[in-house]
């Protein structure tokens, strides 16, 4: 069996996510697919699954041209997917969930054949060596790991009934699994290969790649960089290919004023623990920009949300200028002088239907209070206008609705909100995501100015060149843990990336 993929291209709003990618899948072989966040791996999978319409895509299956207009077509061609996002319906039980993306066995055309449903469900689970999950249990009661196992098992429903070997495409299938569960999946992958199936596995774990794949394809910036036999490559070589060269309009690294050691740090965090964060400890000095690096799901956003008081603290201690606070909440955090720019500015940050000025002053309305309860709108407008100039906002006026602004200008409104009250600590989550080059340069300048003004800045970013250029040091996160802190003077992108990947040396 042979599946040939050529000319796979896709752009989102003019920004190319995937450019002319080519891949070959062979029966009896697992192809690994690696690359940084945003390299185009998931986009490629969405095109193959029929979930996104490609700008161009040629697929040949065993020599015949095929098209994949929707997910039903992908299924008919024998493609099976394990997507990164959980496709679990909480109200259904486990067995029923296994059939959400599979045709139900029927009696008389309209009625579900319950006995067959459970038989097929049991067979799919057994294939993965799963016997600890009750098929009749409600899916809402599953642990995240078990839910992922169910998600994976649904790709194997009816697999034994097929005459022809199938093609399995998996997007980070082991991200939510523990070691034993992952090992079971590896064994299943080996068995499928032995039966002549073809596999495409996206993974961030390089040691896993060497365990399961025969060939590996590296992607970068939406393009396929290289495909080679796994036996002829090494983890170091793959990391080099994933990072490539960096080109950016980055500022020179900011000078950090060295303070005497007896002044308490701007932020001191000890053993911070939440649902998704384990024992994080670090210090941040006033005027310092500290980066936070990690792969998707490493817990970077959760760290900021814990500091802001959005996620509930289970344990740990946060001190701002030596003053401890317990059970923080966003309202108190803003009052204490912590400013926060969330990752999803549209859904978590902005009121898209409101005026620019209202968005800027939202957390600071108490500063514009007069006559007990009223807003001093004159002062509010003046301050908004002033802030618009400081962040070089391009808008028709402070009355313009946020909806009408570009991504970069929306982000500048978020910055205006952050600097309105001269913050002590600024938490930035992917501040330049989806922002054009010009706005990016303005945002870098704003970050540097904030630091020069004495704010401590914690910067989460997936753009490594950005972290390396702006930050004095970088915290490395992996699977909810802070695993290290490195001074950027000793780092290049390659070294940083190997720190982000777990077990890259193996």
């Amino acid at each position, binding site marked *: 069996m042979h599946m040939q993929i050529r000319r796979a291209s896709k752009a989102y709003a003019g920004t190319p996510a995937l450019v002319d990618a080519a891949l070959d899948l062979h029966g009896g072989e697992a192809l690994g697919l690696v690359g940084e966040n945003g390299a185009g791996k998931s986009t490629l999978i969405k095109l193959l699954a029929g979930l996104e319409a490609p700008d161009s895509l040629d697929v040949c299956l065993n020599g015949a041209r095929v098209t994949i207009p929707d997910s039903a077509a992908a299924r008919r061609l024998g493609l099976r997917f394990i997507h990164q996002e959980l496709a679990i319906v909480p109200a259904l039980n486990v067995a029923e969930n296994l059939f959400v993306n599979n045709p139900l066995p029927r009696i008389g055309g309209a009625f579900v054949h319950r006995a067959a449903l459970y038989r097929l469900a049991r067979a799919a689970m057994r294939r993965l060596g799963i016997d600890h999950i009750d098929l009749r249990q409600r899916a809402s009661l599953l642990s995240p790991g078990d839910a992922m196992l169910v998600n994976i098992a649904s790709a194997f429903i009816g697999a034994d009934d097929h005459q022809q070997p199938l093609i399995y495409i998996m997007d980070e299938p082991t991200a939510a699994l523990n070691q034993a569960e992952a090992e079971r999946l590896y064994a299943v992958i080996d068995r499928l290969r032995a039966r002549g199936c073809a596999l495409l596995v996206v993974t961030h774990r390089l040691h896993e790649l060497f365990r399961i794949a025969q060939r590996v394809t590296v992607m970068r910036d939406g393009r396929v960089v290289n495909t080679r036999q796994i036996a002829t490559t090494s983890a170091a070589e793959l990391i080099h290919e994933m990072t490539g060269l960096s080109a950016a309009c980055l500022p020179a690294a900011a000078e950090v004023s060295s303070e005497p050691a007896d002044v308490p740090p701007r932020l001191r965090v000890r053993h911070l623990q939440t649902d998704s964060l384990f024992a994080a400890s670090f210090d941040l000095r006033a005027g310092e920009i500290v980066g936070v690096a990690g792969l998707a799901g490493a817990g970077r956003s959760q760290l900021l949300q814990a500091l802001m008081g959005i996620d509930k603290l289970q344990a740990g201690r946060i001190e701002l200028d030596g003053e401890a606070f317990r059970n923080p909440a*966003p309202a108190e955090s803003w009052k204490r002088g912590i400013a926060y720019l969330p990752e999803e500015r549209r859904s978590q940050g902005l009121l898209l239907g409101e005026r620019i000025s*209202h968005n800027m002053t939202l*957390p600071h309305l108490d500063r514009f209070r007069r006559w007990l309860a009223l807003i001093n709108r004159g002062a509010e407008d003046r301050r908004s206008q002033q802030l618009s100039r400081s962040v070089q906002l391009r808008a028709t006026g402070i009355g313009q*609705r946020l909806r009408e602004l570009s991504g970069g200008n929306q982000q500048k409104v978020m910055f205006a909100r952050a600097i309105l009250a001269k913050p002590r600590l600024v938490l930035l989550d992917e501040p330049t995501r989806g922002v054009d080059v010009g706005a990016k340069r303005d945002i870098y300048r704003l970050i540097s100015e904030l630091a020069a003004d004495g704010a401590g800045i914690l910067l989460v970013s997936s753009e490594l060149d950005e972290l390396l250029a702006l930050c004095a040091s970088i915290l490395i996160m992996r699977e909810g843990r802070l695993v290290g802190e490195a001074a950027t003077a000793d780092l290049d992108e390659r070294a940083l990336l190997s720190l982000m990947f777990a077990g890259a040396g193996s």
Partner: protein
Amino acid sequence: MSQRPHLPSFLRRYGTLIGFLAIVVFFWTQRPATFMTLPNWVNITRQMSILGVVAFTMTIVMVTGDFDLSVGALASLVGIVAGSAFQNGAGVGQAVALALLVGVAGGALNGLLVAGLGISAFVASLGTLTVFRGLALYTSGGASIYGRVIPTEFSSFGRGALVIGEITIPNLTLLAALALALVFVILRFTIAGRRLYAIGGNREAARFGGIRIARLRMLSFVISGLGAAVAGLMLFSRLATAHPTQGEGLMLQAIAAVFLGMTMNEEAQPNVLGTLVGVLILGVLANGLTQMQIDTYIQQILTGVIIILAVTLSSLSQRGLRAPQWLRRLLGERSESA
């Protein structure tokens, strides 16, 4: 240089207002002698005043994205509470204070269920609606309270008016105007009002932006409960009768009025001036159709159709859907040739 008229946004802003004017003109032509007269309009404002108070305070709840289905039942209950107080020898001041207290408590109960326990506003206020109605029926034994137990100074208020020379302003109209002004100031000029809109606009962004959401949602339900209580007292005073179900019709009409008002806002936000127009539409329809001696059942059908029409039109333009081909051609091509 031709500017294509932007049909959706034009319809969105003015469609409902134009509809309202069309209704007024229609009744004017149908009943030229009686409809467009000052006494009739004074009458309309009095007829609408009770609905107005409920709809204005309901606007605050709907600004945050919630509903309060219990207002009608609460208004009935408040009337029964005041009536029972009179039966037990309470004075007007005592009865009114007790009634307002019950309204605030009812609103606080809704707020606690919705903001404190996280139950959906629909389910919570549907539950309290039933509780309030049951309480009203139980307390009154299902019978109306009327007659001599009601102090005349209480019942005369509802029929009384402020007379300034030629102009007569009914007391109920004055109360509704006061409620309108208060809600307008709260929503437009206060910090709490700004925050309420933020909650309705994007709840997560509001929370991340440091707004204490539970507290404000609680406040909005308390205000709604207070509005229901005032409306219940107005109804009791005007009819000089407290019946355990007499406020029932208020809830649906109030929500409809807020919806009509939302159609007049570019961002489809509830706003109290829009709600006023919504209340006026419902009031004028009832008044005009009655003058034309149209069956009240037909009135209900017409009212429903008009609400659906207005909301459909504005939601079409909301989603950026284009107007029908023929309408676009009519407006677009004419302006391009100009």
